[in-house]
């Protein structure tokens, strides 16, 4: 049987079958379609503008490694005019994160990008190993997810970036849609298929790989000989997401387009206006200043629980339920009754660790309009006033 030619260029020999479309294509055409689809995703959503500083959430895994490579390639090829950074979070998982961080450091050298690493230990005083030893493995992903989200924003703020991009791929988004339906998380269901999310005081966060199949990312990394770390998080097997993932794999085997079909479904519906009106308004955490829909943000709530100790499964359940934004099943720590329950099971501790105050990124702070405001924001000794132009000079 003669070798089949590429379905796209009709010249070279086809050496792979695209998981997304089933087309049999050559290597060069695969690189071309993969990169062009990501480029189309970026341009059609108008994710960036020239001069933007973009932090790439890098874990050392295949998604972020390929993302860093593709972002650099597309930035050069299409002159996006972006300044790219690598931002990595060390959750403190022995035998998992320490190895993958070495991969990120190699990526830094290979792609010549500045790298910032922020750890849970320095930010919260707790590593994931310590958290899991305290609360067990059932709800640990909630802690990690909440802590990581805030850590990424804090790291990006420290780098003064305008935008964070993460390597979430089509499989992740499809899993998230299913998971949010099964758990009843309507707030997350309404935004999990958005390619770009931004709150009032938070940095923009985008997913250029939204329509890229995980298998194709692996294929791309393989053919490009990209260096990545491939082990699953040791604490994830018991995560709820694992159920959605297993189901999705089963679906995909029976119907390859299932992943894109689920994303299409997620984009085709929206939360009704009646439900939107009942959702909580965003405010800032009264302890650390990060965005929050309650008096305290989720990270502060969870950290308080850890710090005060005595985290029995029922207490963890209370903390996780408040952290997971379930509008009707959620329990609010703000009620005196719930606080009383929590106090009854927790041991109070003095000198409890708290998260440092979150400084809103300078690009998101409102411009100061009056001379008085400018003066009050600085000390006398740091300001040289130009009485004619009323501008501050360093």
């Amino acid at each position, binding site marked *: 049987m003669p070798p089949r030619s590429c379905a*796209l260029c009709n010249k070279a020999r086809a050496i792979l079958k695209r998981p997304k479309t089933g087309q049999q294509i050559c290597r060069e055409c695969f690189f071309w379609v993969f990169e062009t689809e990501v480029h189309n995703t970026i341009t059609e959503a108008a994710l960036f503008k020239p001069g933007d500083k973009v932090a790439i959430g890098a874990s050392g895994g295949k998604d972020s490694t390929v993302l860093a490579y593709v972002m650099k390639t597309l930035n050069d090829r299409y002159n996006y005019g972006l300044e790219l950074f690598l931002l990595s979070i060390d959750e403190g998982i022995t035998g998992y994160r320490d190895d993958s961080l070495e991969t990120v450091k190699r990526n830094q050298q290979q792609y010549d990008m500045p790298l910032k690493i922020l750890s849970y230990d320095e930010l919260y005083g707790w590593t994931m190993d310590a958290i899991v030893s305290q609360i067990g493995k059932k709800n640990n992903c909630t802690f990690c997810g909440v802590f990581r989200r805030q850590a990424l924003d804090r790291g990006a703020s420290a780098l003064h970036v305008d935008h964070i991009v993460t390597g979430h791929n089509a499989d992740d988004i499809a899993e998230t849609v299913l998971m949010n339906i099964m758990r009843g998380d309507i707030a997350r269901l309404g935004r999990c298929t958005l390619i770009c999310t931004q709150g009032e005081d938070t940095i923009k966060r985008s997913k250029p790989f939204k329509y890229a199949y995980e298998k194709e990312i692996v294929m791309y990394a393989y053919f490009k000989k990209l260096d990545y770390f491939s082990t699953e998080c040791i604490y994830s097997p018991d995560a709820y997401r694992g159920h959605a993932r297993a189901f999705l794999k089963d679906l995909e085997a029976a119907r390859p387009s299932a992943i894109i079909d689920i994303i299409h479904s997620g984009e085709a519906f929206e939360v009704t206006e009646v439900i939107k009106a009942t959702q909580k308004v965003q405010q800032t955490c009264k302890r650390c200043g990060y965005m929050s829909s309650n008096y305290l943000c989720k990270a502060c709530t969870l950290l308080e629980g850890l710090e005060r100790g005595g985290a029995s499964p029922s207490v963890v359940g209370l903390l996780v339920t408040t952290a997971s934004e379930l509008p009707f099943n959620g329990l609010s720590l703000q009620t005196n009754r719930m606080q009383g329950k929590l106090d009854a099971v927790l041991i109070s501790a003095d000198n409890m660790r708290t998260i440092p105050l979150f400084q809103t990124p300078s690009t998101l702070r409102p411009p100061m309009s009056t001379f008085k405001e400018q003066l009050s924001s600085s000390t006398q000794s740091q300001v040289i006033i130009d009485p004619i132009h009323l501008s501050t000079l360093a």
Partner: protein
Amino acid sequence: MPADGGKNHPRHERVWKKVTVCYVEVCDVFPEMRDHTKDVARIVRSYDGFDFVPLRIQDAFSSDWWDPIAGAQSLEQLGVDLTDEELRITVNTPLRPASSVEALRTHLGSLPTTTAAASSVQTFIRLLLLHTAVKTGSSHLVLGTSLTSLAVSLISGVSQGRGFNIREETQEEWEPDQTPREARESKDSTLPRSQKEKHSVRVVRPLRDIGMKECAIWAWWMNIKVVGQEKWLWSGSKQDIGALTRGEFNLHYFIFGLEKDYPSTVSTVVRTCTKVAPKGDAAGRCALCARPVQEGIQEWKSRISIRTSSHLVSKDAHQLHTPPSLVPFLCYACNATMTSRSTRPMPTLGPSAVKASIIPLPKWAETRLSEQEIFRTELMSEEQKKNSLEEFLLEDPE
């Protein structure tokens, strides 16, 4: 005055004056499946005042069933080419199946995946019931969907790309397409207005808040005779791969498994799906499943995956005749049903099954497409161009 208000009190009136029980038998699809029509008929006879309408799944391809509903004889015999992603429509295919059973088996047996076939069976049953409800003059179509089966069908719908129609899974007010007879009657000024008004059917699911096990316990305690339902099995397939639980790829097992560790998963799924609404406008109705089609599907698909190279000249540009495509008339899910191919070979529907590249369409789809202006694109040859200008040409340009 009696305590209950007396014999003539409105509370003793029936909610619905006339009840018709409709059963769709599917045994002709699956080999070795028993025909349960007589069992169902016997149970219906035990209820006072219920009419019984038995249907067979192959009626979806039967002129005998469809022509009285449409009020006109079906003329066009349309087929769809499954080998082309554009799903080209062919007219009066020479190799048309002889009977409706054969047409059904050809259609289902040629689909690319078992999930596609199972999903199509569900669609045919639904449309057969809806059209029968309209034909019998019914105002409501009552389905026995329990909370559990509703959760399964919602997740199944989402998994197949039916997010835009998620609302229709829980509540639906359905109107048929205007039939040729209705089109004629609407222009007839002598007919009363009531006869010209379109008939709609409200689909209700009274058991949607009751779990499957609760329904089973109630039926057992009330000593209700239940016919039961056989699993749909594909001939020649392994039990663990080919067996479909009600056509939803082991979805039942998945949901039940979750329910053990996370109780109330079933009710959570249903409750969540009732909180969402379709986004954007509908652009017509799907020719196959008769549900609203979301705007911009084809643009979305072409945006997210590249299937042709821009420097590759399409063969179509040089074809003299380009048959019309079925794709613009389908919703996202029906399109994916016909085009999404599995790496696993599709098990057969038994020795009598026929696999074909061009498959017949159900009757309602044929009628709908026949009435549409399906544009056929045709490259004009030099001869044709010259002929159209003949009367204006003073001399031969060559």
